[in-house]
């Protein structure tokens, strides 16, 4: 084990590999449960994990979503022993596509209320479910219980408007867990970023250790 890894701010390659494995399991289970809850299959890509300084995060996210003209973001904080921020970034047009997807069984259509409120609320609902599914499963596998703040939504903004870089604490480290998702029906896709700071890392290392011990 190298010296860096022994400080609480860092995670070894081995631990990253374990986390990767847990994410694979968690997201696999989430996808099937999601299908039951929202009646459409959500394809969750194999998650990708990266450790970086918090200040590098805005640039990193921007790089990931640069293909999108505009984005909508759902942000939710989660806290348990494992705590942080979940950022769900939807490609432009996703909100409207989701309205069609979810409200088709409803009386909505020409008589619906203002479309911007509907879009907002739909993004919020789907975001809430998607974040809950991924974070909840991950926490469950690590034997943690998390609670959530109400989701915040930003609808159809330019990237610069949506993410401010001044918000982040320079000292902090972020573990970014990224997955891209795509709804099987409806043209909806985007990225999920789970950002957890070094406060959670010590706990996470222990939890990962406990997880792997089950198999040893």
């Amino acid at each position, binding site marked *: 084990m190298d010296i860096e890894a022994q400080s609480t701010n860092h995670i070894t390659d081995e631990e990253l590999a374990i986390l990767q494995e847990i994410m694979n399991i968690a997201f696999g289970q989430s996808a099937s449960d999601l299908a039951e809850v929202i009646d459409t299959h959500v394809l969750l890509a194999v998650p990708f994990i990266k450790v970086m300084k918090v200040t590098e995060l805005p640039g990193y996210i921007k790089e990931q979503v640069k293909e999108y003209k505009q984005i909508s973001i759902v942000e939710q904080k989660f806290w348990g022993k494992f705590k942080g921020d979940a950022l769900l970034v939807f490609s432009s047009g996703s909100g409207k596509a989701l309205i069609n997807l979810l409200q088709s069984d409803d009386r909505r259509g020409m008589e619906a209320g203002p479309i911007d409120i509907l879009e907002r609320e739909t993004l919020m*609902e789907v975001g809430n*479910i998607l974040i809950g599914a991924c974070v909840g*499963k991950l926490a469950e596998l690590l034997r943690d219980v998390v609670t959530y703040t109400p*989701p915040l939504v930003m609808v159809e903004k330019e990237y610069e408007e949506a993410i401010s870089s001044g918000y982040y604490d320079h000292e902090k480290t972020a573990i970014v867990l990224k997955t891209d998702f795509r709804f099987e029906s409806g043209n909806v896709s985007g990225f999920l970023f789970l950002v957890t700071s070094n406060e959670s890392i010590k706990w996470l290392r222990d939890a990962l250790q406990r997880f792997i011990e089950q198999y040893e």
Partner: protein
Amino acid sequence: MILNQIFDAINLGIVILDADLKIQSWNRWMEIHSGIEAGDVVGKPALESFPNLDNPRFIRSCKSVFSFGNFCFFSQKLHGYLFPFKSSSYVGSEFKYMQQSCAMGPLRDENNQIKCLFIYVQDVTEVAVYERKLVEMSMRDGLTGIYNRRFMDTKLNEEYFRHTRYSRAFSIIMFDIDKFKKVNDEYGHQCGDFILKSVSSRISASIRNIDFLFRYGGEEFCCILPETNLEGAELVAERFRTAIMEMENNFNGDVIKITISLGVADLTNDTASPGDLIQHADEALYRAKRGGRNRVESYSVNKK
């Protein structure tokens, strides 16, 4: 014991449902506002006692609480309320039911298994009433009381999007009071204001309740007609024209007769944006003015 007292003392509705969505607990607040005592609902299926909960969104939310331990939020803006309770304590409240902001989340047993879900219900009627008043004020023109330019931009966008999405007929009428400057110069600005008000109220009284009338600026108005094709809109415009022409405006003993010129446009293949629609109607209005005023003209591609 102490926590139980809080359960009943708190100014918040609390309901607990089990995995079959049967009501397990119903606090004092819920009893007061529903008029239903706990003994009468506990053990009963929530969807049976409150049939309005039997909708995909509510059921989806319950499932996500039990599957993922999610927290779900039901905002007043979209849902209005979860439990239909009479809103009694607000004088003149225009809401039929108490406006509620609600949330649900998981309740776990000692092994962290989710056994039940809680719903909390917050009465936000007062805030919703204020908000509605503010929104209403921000949409209206102070002088005439009809909708203002600001709201027009929002509404036109919304209707434009909705109609193009469903490929439905959609028209707008732009109109303008003829020689309005003369009215101001001859009778004074108070009379000008009076004329603006009478035109607004005369036209408002003659439109369907799905149509919207806006003061576009100065003496210019715009009327948007959902689900209406060009022919229909031309008839409406013609009705506006005669109604205003026949109107006798009595101001301080003077009878002032005025006329309006109107331009009509509908959604066609060369309308690419809400702005195009306004521009087309404006072009038609300009032709009506040039053609001698007090007339209706329609936009068409070849008549430019």
